[in-house]
């Protein structure tokens, strides 16, 4: 059976999407307990666009990134859903691929830059070896050519190729390793790149350089991107669309302008309100009161209700679904119409004061 069949039924998937995720759930087993890291996640990625996945620490962003390329650890299990990739070479169902097919899919169709910059490297191999290894895994063995390409990519990410290529990972600073990974992910010119916290270790100037680079790559190569970040400014700088995650679910999905102008989920309102105002001197920082729920025993109803200033009985009982409010905008909240009233109010302040 061919894995890339254009005659596959369109199902619910719009032909224009590059990746479609439907009803995806993932659990981790820890002893005899189940950590529900992702619950019924659905979304589409349009070709050429940049999607940001944002949300608090532990909300499931990296788990989603790993699930999309089937890089989850063995203790994780995908308990429901489908992931369809609709690339240049036809449609594939990711959850049906054999490990050999997956190996080809990764890097060439879809590359991941993982959050674990250090773990992603083999400590006894130089950076140059990493490039050769990755290329060899895809049947490319022309060393001179790979070297040239690696050289070019190093310059693209503002690294000194002459020094960095022969270095071992521990000889590079944190930010340098992160840029090496970005370069490596581009080696096989994938259609989709997933970047998990691509700029967290970088200073403002390097961050800008990377952002500029990613913008350019999108324009030149028509690259599609998914960023994972807790940093809203990265979404503001780069994303076309933003999916806000909370406790393993997508609670809002919208274009970037609407999110910043008019967040519809109370949690998004809180996140945006917590962005420090840098113009204020010695500004005090605002945080959302309470903590994210325990993924082992989730609250009933809406997972955000214990922290939500708008919650009522219904929120405690029923789980709100992600529904479309306007074309291209979705939110999972019974009270989204009132979310605006939380803006600027002190409903979310005072956690530590």
């Amino acid at each position: 059976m061919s894995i890339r069949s254009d005659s596959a039924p369109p199902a619910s998937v719009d032909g224009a999407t590059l990746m479609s995720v439907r009803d995806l759930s993932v659990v981790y087993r820890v002893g005899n307990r189940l950590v529900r890291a992702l619950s019924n996640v659905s979304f589409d990625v349009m070709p050429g666009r940049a999607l940001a996945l944002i949300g608090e620490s532990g909300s499931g962003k990296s788990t989603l990134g790993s699930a999309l390329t089937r890089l989850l650890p063995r203790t994780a299990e995908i308990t429901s859903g489908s992931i369809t990739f609709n690339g240049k070479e036809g449609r594939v169902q990711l959850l049906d691929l054999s490990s050999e097919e997956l190996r080809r899919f990764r890097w060439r169709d879809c590359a991941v830059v993982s959050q674990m910059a250090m773990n992603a490297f083999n400590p006894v191999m130089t950076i140059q070896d990493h490039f050769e290894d990755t290329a060899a895994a895809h049947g490319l063995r022309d060393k001179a050519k790979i070297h040239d390409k690696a050289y070019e990519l190093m310059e693209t990410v503002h690294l000194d190729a002459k020094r960095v290529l022969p270095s071992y990972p521990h000889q590079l600073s944190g930010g340098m390793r992160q840029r090496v990974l970005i370069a490596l992910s581009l080696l096989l010119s994938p259609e989709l790149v997933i970047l998990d916290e691509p700029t967290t270790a970088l200073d403002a100037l390097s961050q800008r350089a990377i952002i500029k680079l990613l913008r350019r790559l999108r324009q030149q190569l028509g690259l599609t991107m998914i960023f994972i970040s807790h940093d809203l400014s990265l979404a503001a700088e780069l994303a076309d669309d933003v999916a806000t995650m909370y406790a393993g679910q997508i609670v809002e999905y919208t274009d970037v302008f609407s999110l910043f102008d008019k967040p519809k989920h109370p949690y998004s309102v809180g996140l945006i309100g917590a962005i420090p105002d840098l113009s204020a001197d010695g500004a005090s920082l605002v945080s959302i009161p309470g903590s994210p729920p325990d993924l082992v025993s989730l609250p009933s109803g809406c997972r955000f209700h214990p922290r939500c200033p708008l919650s009522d009985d219904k929120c405690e009982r029923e789980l709100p679904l992600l529904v479309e409010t306007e074309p291209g905008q979705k939110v999972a909240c019974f009270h989204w119409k009132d979310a605006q009233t939380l803006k600027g109010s002190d409903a979310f302040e005072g956690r530590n004061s």
Partner: protein
Amino acid sequence: MSPLVEFRSVERTYPSRQGPLHVIRDVSFTIERGGILAVVGESGCGKTTTGKIAAGLVDPSRGTVLFDGENISGFKGPELSRFRRRVQLIHQDPYSSLNPVRTVYQTLAAPLKRFRLVKNRTELLHKVRELLLTVDLTPPDDYLYKYPHQLSGGQRQRVAVARALTVNPDFIIADESVSMVDVSIRSSLLNMLLRLNQELGVAFLFITHDLSVARYFSWRGKTAVMYLGRIVEYGPTPEVTRLSAHPYSRALVASLPVSDPRVARLRAQDDEVGSPDVPSIQNIPPGCAFHPRCPLYMAGSCDRDVPELMGMRESESLHQVACPVVLTR
């Protein structure tokens, strides 16, 4: 009384195929008891190396580091062990700094037991739970028996912070310790660390790539801006961050990320101007290392003389900058 920490003309070089790499050059600063020094600067400028030297994990190639007035390279035996308790380094990379075969409980319990900071098992468990709560890992029982690979990036980072707190240190070197957490948790971690500073007098060397975080955390302390291994601006944080004088510090301030998609897109249009060359410690430009990227560059002097840190003119304060062009303006 001597300051708690003092760097005197510290240098560090590493050998490389193409000759020695000067990672840190002529770095001097002091941190008072209960003081805070934030170190900011570009990726690769030597922040982590500075932190490791302060923690005694990397030796300076030249210069001295004093702790409580004593040269740390002379510490041995019980003295060294006392130093190791009083000074805690929170590593930049929580993925490689936590022992993968230890649960969170084991990681936090080990130093408590080693330094006999608890009386019995009940107290131990209680203390570990308390530490987890302090870093917002709630409910603590969910985390006690997890291994590092079972935690998200931000959760690991908080375990690393909690570990540093176990032994009641006098001096914490925090290397990018809030880089992986979202704004909400970041606020509460920063406030928690500030409380340690204000209530218990814990001193900090606070390393961050994020000027706005440095500014918040060290508002009452000092900030050092590093560029290719040297401190180019140093002084009280309000002055260094509000009245930044060095062209490099000014560039850092100007490129702070914005959290408004419209502003971000407008700014993208002038991104082509002044795009950085690849700065390299392999061949550090002669004179002022920043001169190839500098808008104030003056041929004949900037590319010849290494500028020294000097007090800003007409300023009573301790605000220092290493740029003769700015100083003579």
